[in-house]
């Protein structure tokens, strides 16, 4: 040991020295940094989390606010140029006119009126996170009318605003569901792996059994049993727990196989021979060694839970209004006529896809980075 430390060939430069002295987490970070897709995933995810956390401030409109003069209105895309030349980003004003074909009264953009998009625009007073009183929003229009970046739904509610509030709910369902799966998976997988024998056999058969049931129909059946009298909040908790209760199997299997491979390592045997209790061995020696694998499994478990919630709510078995999740928003896009006339009500889909992609990229990158034998450093 002491020989290698003084060996001039090994200790060639500061870089190798840094690698030798770096902690496990630092090594993981170095490898992770080189994974381009994973870095993009991490960036997109932080952006989405920022949107969700500061939704009150970023959303240009209040989530349940109805703009009755702009029902099913198309997205207002800020422009910098029109027939009157260039200018500060603006959207056109609105005017009422008759549809040339149906002769209905409709709201159409008025190309002569410009409404400038301004930062930190004045708004109705609101409470950020229910405590902080504010009177400004990140984006707004100069004349105080409402900015609908992604258009409005059939009740005149702003799609973008509702999407980022829904993002908050969907992410929270994901976090809570994954946490429940995490505790169950770690506990059950750890037990199976450490105790082995008939306990292991029974647990593994049970896991295979649960895994052979198609997930979504099972979720749908359980969610349909949630009483209709329950409030939206009760339903929210019920659905989150349901999603978590069925999601632990994959994690339990990962933890078990990792623990089995560690159980017979010399340092664990040494600890056992020295009379260390089972519980202490699990806590001090086995669990820390599985941490990185667990983190990877957790990251990769997110998309399943979020997609599950989206599908359930989309079908009307999941969360219920006034709680808005991405799936609840998409429920209104179920109708082909709605999609044909106002495709923008489908735009919450973009957020679903972004979340799932970001978590998958991040998970893949973490998996490569956490593997000490990968040579992608």
């Amino acid at each position, binding site marked *: 040991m002491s020989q290698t430390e003084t060996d001039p060939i090994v200790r060639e430069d500061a870089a190798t020295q840094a690698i030798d002295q770096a902690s496990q987490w630092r090594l993981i970070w170095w490898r992770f940094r080189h994974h381009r897709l994973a870095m993009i995933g991490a960036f997109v995810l932080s952006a989405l989390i920022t949107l969700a956390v500061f939704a009150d401030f970023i959303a240009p409109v209040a989530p349940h606010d109805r703009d009755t003069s702009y029902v099913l209105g198309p997205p207002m895309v800020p422009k910098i140029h029109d027939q009157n030349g260039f200018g500060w980003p603006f959207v056109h004003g609105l005017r009422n006119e008759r549809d040339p074909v149906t002769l209905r009264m409709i709201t159409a953009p008025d190309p002569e009126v410009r409404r400038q998009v301004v930062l930190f625009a004045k708004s109705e007073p609101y409470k950020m996170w229910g405590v902080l009183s504010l009177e400004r929003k990140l984006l707004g229009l100069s004349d105080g009318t409402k900015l609908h970046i992604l258009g409005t739904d059939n009740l005149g509610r702003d799609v973008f605003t509702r999407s980022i509030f829904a993002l908050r709910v969907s992410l929270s369902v994901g976090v809570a569901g994954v946490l429940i799966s995490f505790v169950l998976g770690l506990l059950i997988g750890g037990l199976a792996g450490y105790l082995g024998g008939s306990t292991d056999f029974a647990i593994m058969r049970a896991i295979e059994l649960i895994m*052979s049931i198609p997930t*979504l129909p099972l979720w749908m059946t359980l969610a349909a049993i949630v009483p209709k009298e329950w409030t939206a909040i009760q339903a929210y908790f019920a659905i989150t727990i349901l999603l978590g209760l069925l999601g632990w199997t994959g994690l339990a299997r990962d933890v078990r196989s990792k623990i089995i491979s560690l159980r017979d390592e010399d340092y664990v045997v040494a600890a056992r021979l020295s009379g260390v209790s089972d519980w202490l061995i699990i806590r001090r020696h086995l669990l820390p060694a599985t941490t990185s694998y667990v983190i990877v499994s957790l990251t990769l478990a997110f998309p399943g839970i979020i997609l599950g919630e989206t599908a359930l709510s989309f079908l009307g078995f999941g969360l219920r209004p006034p709680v808005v999740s991405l799936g609840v928003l998409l429920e209104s896009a179920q109708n*082909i006529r709605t999609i044909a006339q106002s495709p923008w009500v489908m735009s919450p889909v973009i957020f679903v896809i972004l979340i799932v*992609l970001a978590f998958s*990229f991040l998970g893949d990158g973490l998996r490569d980075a956490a593997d000490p034998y990968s040579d992608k450093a």
Partner: protein
Amino acid sequence: MLGMIVFRTLSMFVTLAIISAIVFFLISLPPGDFAESVALSRSINGEPVTPEDIQIMRERLHLNEPLLDRYIWWIKGILTEGDFGMSFRYMTPVTDLIGERMGLTALLLVLTLFITYIIAIPVGVFSAIYQYSLPDYIVTFLGYLGLAIPNFLMALVLLYFSTVVLGIEGVGSVFSPEYQNAVWSFGKVIDLLLHLWVPAIVLGLAGTAGGIRVIRATMLDELNKLYVTAARARGVPERRVIWKYPVRIALNPVISTLGWNLRDLASGAPVVAIVLNLPDIGPLFFQALLDQDMFLAGTLVLFLTSLTVVGTFLSDLLLAWFDPRIRKGVVK
């Protein structure tokens, strides 16, 4: 080999038995019972229902007995008479409702599985051989996208494009109008297959993307191995080098995950069918859940699960047949 088949067959039946018990437990979970539901729906329709009527119905349907007895009664009905219980909404035996629809779902699943592999295997192999080429990047990107887009949304997008952009009506229908009410014939089967490939592609999107990834990864591992270099060095034609050796090994994980893939397909199938309004078990399942018509819903879950359990069993057998190392017990 024979011992393995016997053991796997037995464990398959044990699995099915336990799952049926779980499903039955689910069926009996909602508050209130079948007789009350029927009484409610009758009194809504203006028919008078007395407490005695409910009592008679309970006795006829064995609803007063303990859960275990009812389960045994239910299983006995299934095994001896193929009777899965009553649907209270339709007031007919469940079997009458789901017969033909189950066939369509099973056909759709098998067809999807088939299309999945027809696409995934060549694309995965190609993508591995031409690693880091433009097509490889495109395939990898599309693969990620395919995994990220929930298939019910894909179905919606498809509906949008076909109705709005292409102006085709009735993507969800599975027969051309002239075959709608015709008796089964060769022409009708062909017509059905010509209509089913659209939902099959929507349903198989995630599976295909996953399959491509698995095959590409295994192929990349195998292509760098010495036996490939050795075969090349001996002048074996490139096409043969690839298709005869590494591809065979790359197919292994594909076959062993066939059962899981089928499970995922069975999981997504009802939702896609609901969106596209296919006349298979999807919309029926949806309606059953809305009505808390639990015998019908439970039977459908049991049906989907049985499909995947049998599929896993078959994929294990297939793997043993396909891979001599597993058949001879060299590799587990």
